[in-house]
């Protein structure tokens, strides 16, 4: 199989390789795939106070198309809102990188990685709001944790 020039370009010069602090509440981490299946992607986003993704990083174990798909994803994620990021579809990656049919699963994995990073970020944010809400009413007396959670809607 021959690779598209875009895939080759991304694998030779992968963008945004690296690791963000996974314990940072503003960082969402997605780890998808499995070594036994031949590809694992870790994609991380860091969301700024304005709600924009200010940084995105990846590390990928996989073939050239998997590396290129995740590299491209990090490029696209930067500067987007979470909603915009969530709208990225694997077909967009397939089109941009000219992936052949046998490599479509690489783009699917990249979409999964984005979704998983967003879900992680949201879960952290929700947990933080929970703990803030649980702490705030405390001055008016103890509120059961479950009630605070409900108040959040």
């Amino acid at each position, binding site marked *: 199989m021959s690779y598209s020039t875009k895939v080759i370009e991304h694998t030779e010069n992968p963008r945004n390789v690296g690791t963000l602090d996974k314990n940072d509440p503003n960082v969402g981490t997605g780890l*998808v795939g499995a*070594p036994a*299946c031949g*590809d694992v992607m870790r994609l991380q986003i860091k969301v700024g106070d304005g709600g924009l993704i200010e940084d995105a990083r990846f590390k990928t*174990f996989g073939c050239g198309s998997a*590396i290129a798909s995740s590299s491209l994803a990090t490029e696209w994620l930067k500067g987007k809102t979470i909603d915009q990021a969530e709208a990225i579809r694997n077909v967009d990656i397939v089109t941009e990188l000219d992936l052949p049919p*046998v490599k479509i*699963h690489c783009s699917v994995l990249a979409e999964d990685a984005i979704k998983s990073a967003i879900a992680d970020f949201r879960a952290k944010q929700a947990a933080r709001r929970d703990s803030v809400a649980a702490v705030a009413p405390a001055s008016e007396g103890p509120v059961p944790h479950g009630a605070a959670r409900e108040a959040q809607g």
Partner: protein
Amino acid sequence: MTLQLPIFMDYHSTTPVDPRVVEEMLPHFTKSFGNAASRNHAFGWAAEEAVEHARERVGQLLGAASAKEIVFTSGATESNNLAIKGVADFYRDKGDHVVTQVTEHKAVLDTCKRLEKEGLRVTYLDVGKDGRVDPADVAKAIGDKTILVSIMLANNEIGTVQPLREIGEITRARGVLLHSDAVQGVGKVPFDVQSMNVDLASVTAHKMYGPKGVGALYVRRSKPRVRLVAQMDGGGHERGMRSGTLNVPAIVGFGKACDIMRLEGREESARILALRERLRTRLVGELDEVHLNGSFEHRLPGNLNLSFAFVEGEGLMMAIKDVAVSSGSACTSSSLEPSYVLRALGVGDELAHSSIRFGLGRFNTPEEVDYVADLVATKVRKLRELSPLYEMHQEGIDLEKVQWVAH
């Protein structure tokens, strides 16, 4: 240093034709183009003479008692089909059971699968961690109805050389025929149909610096005389075992390639082994977590099958695209399943995905080996920096214990 890129290190897949072989072939395309079956004119006689000369040479390399034991075919796929189906068809009254092993080439395994559909019973023996079958397992698998044992000389992925001599003693004692797919090993490791008691052997020219599309099946003619049912009906060429006009130029080239192997094979193997060891020791010395797949001791001189943990094989192949190698990674096949050969050794899927097969051969040089060692070491390091698995490994996380979300 003038190094020609790309570098070919995939000699198990095929080989370039040796210029000395090409030279002998050329006249047979133009001047001496006769049909070897034309019995009544000079063109036919010349072609027949050339074919018989080649037959002698192929027979000599294999240790055949007579050139008449060589049947020319289109390659080893056909030879394997003819051997196994031919024997199964002929000896149907005698038995219905064949013994083989799990790392055989698909040309053997799929032939056996086909016969199973037709009611034959096939035992697929497991191999050890080193890729070898245990001759004792062969002995145990043979029953009253066993007509054939088919065990390869050397494996095309991991280069593991099978204990054929020991197996031959067993099959001979038990009166069962022994077929061997000898494609990868002939000329490179000791092989001889007489001393090894091999009754049928498949070979192909393009793995030994001859042309593609020509091969042979050795069929023993005495003690015991092996009988086959032809699988191709037609003009009755090749003593009725393989009809079809002979590909004279290719057969001539095959003969020459065998002659070169017979005369130079031993010395060449020593040279290639030294190159392979140079490559292996450099890679294992410079990188951590590099695993050798298959037996170290019982191995083709030119074969180096390594798993570079935490790096995916196809990704690595792409990073070293000026070097032609091959991988057991699923990504290189359309099936998305990693190599069944590595699986059979008990190599985990993740290491199978990380495997690279280097196949060294006649035209590789020490300079090429050094270039490849440097390049591979550099790229593996770079890809590990890109690998979440390597990072996790360095953090001390046991990758086996992670709950992976397969997609």
